[in-house]
């Protein structure tokens, strides 16, 4: 499966980004090949509905899990419709540290908006 994490850089040692919809990159971990790769986030330039555009990109990469500190209502709605499971973590860990948290079940599954963006 593929897990996506919003990041400030393009690799597993990058800092994570507090802003899901407008991060510079998504770092994606592929559990089949045990490798990381990154995509540039096109939603960073979106006038509005950036959360939706960010989710659309991840869906086209066949991502099935997203782990982020905050997810707005539009992003959560889009994730649900695209069958991508959202999880939440606290703090500002590195990308690879978020993955450790996920596998140690130290992340929270999300069902509602944690923050509203207009």
């Amino acid at each position, binding site marked *: 499966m593929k897990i996506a994490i919003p990041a400030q850089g393009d690799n597993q040692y990058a800092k994570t980004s507090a802003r899901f919809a407008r991060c510079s990159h998504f770092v994606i971990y592929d559990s089949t090949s045990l490798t990381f790769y990154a995509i540039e986030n096109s939603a960073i330039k*979106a*006038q*509005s*509905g950036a959360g*939706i*555009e960010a989710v*659309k990109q991840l*869906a086209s990469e066949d991502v099935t899990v997203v782990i982020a500190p905050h997810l707005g209502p*539009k992003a959560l*709605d*889009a994730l*649900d*419709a*695209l*069958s991508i499971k959202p999880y939440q973590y606290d703090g500002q860990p590195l990308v690879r540290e978020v993955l450790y948290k996920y596998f140690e079940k130290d992340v929270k599954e999300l069902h509602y908006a944690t923050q509203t963006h*207009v």
Partner: protein
Amino acid sequence: MKLAILSGKGGTGKTMLSVNLFSYKNHAVLLDCDVEEPNDHLFIEGRLFHKELVTKQYPVVTETRCIHCERCGDFCQFNAIVPTKKRILVYEELCHDCGGCKLVCPTNAIRYENKAVGTITSIMTPTNKQLIYGTLEIGEISGVSIIEHVKKQIQPDQYNIIDCPPGTSCSTVEAVQGADYAIIVTEPTVFGKSDMAMVVELLDKLHIPRGIIINKADLLYDHIIEEYAKDNNISILGKIPFEKTYAKELANGNTLLHNKEFLNAIQHITTQLDGEYNA
């Protein structure tokens, strides 16, 4: 006559000038186009004589007809319609009502329904002058259609004062376009000057003649604007001094025409304006 009042920087005094100019004139129409935050009506006494809703259309999908080709999602520039395997997501507040998704749908699975995006309110003063203002619904993405509707109330044979939104975005362009003359209300600060420069660029593109009023004027700082005006060949129509008493009156929802100094400033400005416009 269509006179637009602009600023660039917010808080320089567009509304102050608009409501005082409107009150000063015997006959005028005031159109408050700052639809995200209309304030003019707070200063003007009158009775409500008309109110109407402004609506837009947004897509509704008949899922049974949808073949999940995703052409609607590919077409939409605003992520207002997002096809997914489970269902088609529609974000009404992002929709710009372009009609494109329905056009590209091969199975006619999209229809449009109406939603209110704002209101237009018309007030008649005891001296038979009209104030029209638009209000944008909270969460809606664009005030442009509300402003279009407000400007439909322009009366060609009257002195129309158009209080524009701050900045130089789509809403401001919609409010100012078609004006015969634009007054740029600025303050003697570097921020005021810098944002005014953007407005001047906009007015150049729209070929609208313009003049400057320095509000909150101060002998020590006015040169910031005066130098700019000289370099760019723009007339300064007048100055309104920085006075705490003015701010207090305005905060109480009062106009300033009872103040002798202010009244003189307005008289000077209107004389200059007539000269500019007839030139």
